[in-house]
């Protein structure tokens, strides 16, 4: 049947696409590997990520504990994988929030044009150079260290770039014939923006998303490292690294594994972003 074939070739298309570029290929392979580990390891492993085993204490990597244990006797492999889960989750959620805000803001600014657009973009310009981490920290301090708030806050500060990109695209699409046709046929503004304009911006949106996920993961690691992000007993790679720094002299492995995983995940995400950028938006 046609639909089955289409579905299969779609999956095949995806795979061929991701394989097409050395950066995409390497990045995707590494990332997929980590995602699989993050999902499976905690399920498969018999260790828990939060139950302490104070008699055991910190133990260097061995057959029983591949990544060793931390100062409270918790298995590092499982903790790292949990940390990875949380970091990735926050990355995806926060990026979604920023996409939501930024795309809509940019599309409205672009479509409205004129003074509204100028004002909206002036606001973006003014806020652009400012390091938003401070805002996030304020929000975290004020509203407590809720994980949902964390993604909302992180996402809320990333939207500026995508709003500019989407606005640019909308400005150039605004006068194309198919938009005029939609307007003439009585399509409401809302529909035009959501059904026609935004879908045509997918290219740059995808590239932007690929670039924002690692940025957000970095920022979350930064916050958690300082103690302002995820709270114990939950862990993210950032908080694990913070623990690692504290216990550096007890056991290098407590620092090494989360650090290495964070670096590798960031590398793979950056490679994917670079590969996508080359394919979708080579002009930049």
């Amino acid at each position: 049947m046609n639909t089955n074939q289409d579905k299969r070739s779609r999956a095949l298309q995806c795979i061929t696409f991701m394989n097409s570029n050395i950066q995409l290929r390497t990045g995707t392979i590494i990332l997929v590997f980590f995602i699989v580990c993050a999902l499976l390891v905690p399920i498969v492993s018999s260790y828990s990520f939060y139950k302490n085993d104070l008699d055991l204490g910190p133990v260097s990597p061995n057959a029983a504990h591949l990544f060793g244990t931390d100062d409270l006797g918790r298995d590092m492999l499982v903790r790292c994988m949990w940390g990875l889960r949380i970091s990735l989750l926050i990355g995806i959620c926060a990026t979604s929030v920023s996409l939501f805000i930024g795309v809509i803001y940019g599309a409205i600014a672009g479509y409205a044009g004129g003074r509204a657009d100028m004002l909206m973009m002036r606001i973006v310009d003014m806020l652009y150079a400012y390091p938003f981490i401070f805002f996030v920290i304020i929000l975290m301090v004020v509203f407590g260290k809720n994980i949902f708030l964390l993604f909302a806050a992180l996402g809320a500060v990333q939207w500026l770039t995508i709003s500019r990109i989407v606005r640019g695209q909308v400005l150039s699409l605004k006068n194309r014939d198919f938009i005029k046709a939609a307007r003439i046929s009585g399509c409401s503004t809302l529909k035009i923006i959501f059904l026609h304009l935004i879908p045509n911006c997918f290219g740059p949106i995808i590239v932007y998303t690929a670039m924002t996920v690692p940025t957000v993961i970095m920022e979350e690691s930064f916050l958690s490292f300082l103690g302002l992000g995820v709270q114990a007993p939950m862990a993210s790679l950032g908080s694990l690294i913070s623990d690692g720094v504290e216990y550096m002299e007890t056991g290098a492995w407590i620092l090494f594994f989360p650090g290495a995983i964070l670096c590798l995940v960031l590398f793979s995400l950056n490679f994917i972003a670079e590969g996508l950028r080359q394919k979708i938006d080579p002009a930049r």
Partner: protein
Amino acid sequence: MIRMIISRLFQSLVTLFLIVTFSFFMMRIAPGGPFDSERNLPPEIEANIMAKYRLDLPIMSQYVYYMSDVAKGDLGLSFRYQDHTVNELIFEGAKVSFTLGAFALLFALIVGVPFGIIGARREESVLDHMIVTTTVFGISIPNLVLGPVLVMLFAILLPVFPAGGLDSVRSYFLPVLTLSIFYMAYITRLTRVGFIGIGKREFVVTAKAKGLSEPAIIFRHMFRGGILPLVSFLGPAAAGILTGSIVIEKIFQIPGIGQHFVQGALNRDYTLVMGVVVFYSALIITFNFIIDLVYLALDPQVKYR
């Protein structure tokens, strides 16, 4: 051109105003305050403290007082350290943080710019490829991994530098290095791209045709144009170094503003946190404004637009 400067100045002040207002109201919405200790205070003392922090006034009056204080440069009293003003705490930490940040930026520039120029002039050579690859690593490794790794290597395994504190000149080395590496790599890339772009412009060929030496071509002709992308980056770079130093201060136990900020955030010391935000914002906005002026000065065509 004067109009442009004034408009930029205006924008900067408006941004600063918005940021301070936002911080103020955020803080007032938050629960907690200077009384979070478990002690039960007798009502007169409590009233005194409320007056001292002006918490007995309606919120808009508090706002107006705060804004006028800020305009005068007074950032209020710390909620936590009730004997110290926020200004004191900030200036104490600022000496340290500034030294750190300034050295890091300087170091990044001193190393990054020459390598960027060398890479650009020897484009596609083996040396250039090595430079580019190294920079990729430099920008990908986060401070919070790099710092501890450097400490492990150069303070624990090979005890060359101290792992923390700022008691000797030597102890500055690792923190400054860690903070500067990302910027060094980024600056190298920006400079390289800027100079490659300028090298393609025809007037560079003219300069070569006039028989000018390589250094003359680079410094007299290519420099002003080639360095523009870097100048634009310096604004965000300064901001980034300020934020980056927060992590560095934690890793290396350095008593800078960043530490105060984090402690303030953890302790819900609102005035301190707000004070730091106002201070940092003013700094960043001023720096960006100065950079805008430098950019205008470098590009004579802008004067006529």
